[in-house]
């Protein structure tokens, strides 16, 4: 199909004098990308699917056996794995809810004529631009019980943020909220500024109060784009690894991707971890699909 719509090469161009056809040029640009994609993405994806049906261990030379669905059966019956999923779910809910509340709230504040609006918006976006590992490292310092600035500022004394098993997961979520609220804010701001001014005027004429206007006009009209932000953040939070891994090593913060990492590279249960990775993949796709279904329903109007 691509060749049909392609324009012919100008016969006087340099490429033409070198004897390159349109097809050759297209291949020159596309083939490296495709090769890269196959070697580093698609091949490992399929190969690991194969591993997930074996008891292969990458740390030994021992021959591996085909075990069928045994890995999946073990994992899905393992209460510890389910505990990891429960931790992950809690983390996703706290973190994404926090990001939506903070991000959307800040977007509402910014969605008006204020001085230095552009500068403020840019500065607010900074956390998002940092590397996850860096954010993890310096929040570890901020949270430090003896010299961390958070305890100092809040007057909490020697409160243990990261080594208290009941608080650690929320501390990680808080860092994630700090880092990714700007993303939700950015998308919400785009959505908010796309709501036509005259609808607010019409609502004012129709005697709607500020709350009524917010819930019946603003929120429904921003919902589709807010939904996209939520999809992105849910997927990301579900896969969270670096932040949680760097900040703390509590069992209560062992989200599913940390379990996966340990299984694959500390316990060297390669086959088993491949199966777990596939279970995660199916779950992420399932959750995302729920959102996409809802998004399509919202977009219909």
């Amino acid at each position, binding site marked *: 199909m691509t060749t049909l719509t392609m324009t012919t090469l100008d016969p006087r161009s340099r490429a033409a004098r070198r004897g390159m056809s349109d097809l050759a040029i297209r291949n020159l640009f596309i083939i490296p990308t495709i090769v890269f994609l196959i070697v580093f993405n698609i091949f490992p994806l399929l190969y690991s699917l194969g591993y997930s049906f074996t008891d292969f261990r990458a740390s030994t030379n021992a021959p591996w056996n085909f075990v069928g669905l045994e890995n999946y059966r073990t994992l899905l019956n393992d209460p510890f794995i389910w505990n990891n999923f429960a931790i992950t779910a809690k983390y996703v809910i706290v973190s994404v809810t926090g990001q939506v509340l903070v991000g959307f709230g800040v977007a509402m504040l910014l969605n008006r004529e204020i001085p230095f609006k552009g500068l403020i918006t840019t500065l607010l976006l900074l956390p998002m631009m940092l590397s996850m590992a860096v954010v993890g490292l310096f929040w570890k310092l901020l949270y430090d019980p003896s010299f961390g600035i958070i305890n100092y500022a809040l007057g909490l004394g020697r409160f243990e943020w990261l080594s208290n098993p009941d608080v650690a997961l929320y501390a990680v979520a808080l860092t994630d909220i700090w880092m990714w609220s700007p993303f939700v804010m950015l998308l919400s701001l785009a959505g908010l500024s796309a709501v036509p001014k005259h*609808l607010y005027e*019409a609502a004012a*004429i*129709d*005697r709607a109060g500020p709350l009524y206007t917010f819930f*019946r006009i603003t929120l*429904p009209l921003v919902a589709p784009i807010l939904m996209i932000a939520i999809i992105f953040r849910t997927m990301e939070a579900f896969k969270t690894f670096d932040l949680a891994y760097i900040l703390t090593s509590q069992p209560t913060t062992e989200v599913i991707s940390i379990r996966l990492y340990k299984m694959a590279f500390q316990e060297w249960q390669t086959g088993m971890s491949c199966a777990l990775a596939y279970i995660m993949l199916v779950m992420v796709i399932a959750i995302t699909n729920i959102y996409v279904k809802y998004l399509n329903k919202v977009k219909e*109007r």
Partner: protein
Amino acid sequence: MTEIVLRGIQKWFGPVQVIKDLNLTIAPNEFIVMLGQSGCGKTTTLRAIAGLETIDEGDILIDGKPVQHLKCSDRDIAMVFQSFSLYPHMTVFENIAFPLRATRMGKADVDKAVREIARVLRITDLLDRRPSALSGGDMQRVAIGRALVRQPKAMLMDEPIGALDAKLREEMRAEIKRLHLKQGSTTIYVTHDQVEAMSLADRIVIMHEGVLQQVGSPEEVYSRPQNLFVAQFVGSPVMNVSPAAVRDDGGAVSVAVDATVPGFPFPRELLGHLNGHASGGALAMGIRPEGVLVSREARDGYVPVEVHLIEPLGSYDIVDLKVGEAMLRARTSAGFVPAAGERVHARIDPAQAHFFDTASGQSLGVRL
């Protein structure tokens, strides 16, 4: 049954004054049309009455109460926007119900009120649709329904049918008139289309550059324009206006639009009415095309002219007549003058002539 009074309204946008000392009293149940070119301040005035725009000076009184400091929600007026401003995520029913639900009206009452207004507007079968699935005319009906449903003190309409095509515009115009006669609420309607203004209004308010030019019934502004702006803005085809010189050769009085040709005869009273304005070049005569009478034979009082251009408009023709160097447009029955270039004879009906002071633009109020 609402009276709206505007008293000494002044409004600036930065250094530009968009409303200049506006005074107007709108009687209960009156249909007022504000007419003017874009940028003349008519929409700003409307938005100021609605409360969407603040005013810098003056009072807006609704039923005798000053409201200029109240929010729009406390003024109890409804408005129909040019862009319709329907809520895109709600059905027609929800759109019309919105003003009622916003003020926490009971479910049964809302349902009854919406169905009643839908029946009046003949949109009952559209209630479950979304605005995006409606035609322009139906969208406008819904917008009007949303405005009428809560029986507001006054209806404001900002070029409500400006976005529709010509045929639909005519239909909706009749519909709006029908609704007003039936529901009877004080209505202020903004438009730049003088045909719309003439056909709908009880009284027309003509504005130009923020200044109110004339207020009067359609018949009044058409036949007794107070100044040159109104004279040329109202009426289609446009009124002929040309500098005029009054000649008095003892017996007969004539008005010439060009020095090289004989003047059109006028009765002697004209001199008395003009009251000294006759001398000097500061006089302009206005005559609507239907006030220029055309004859194909030479007749007493008719001046020979050349036909320059004919615009056949079906039910009548507009004929451009060359009087010396000046042009006069006349309205004749269709096909009355066979071809351009023909020489015919023209006369001006003194009863339909208007005289203006060129310097001030004001009408001299001459009625013969």
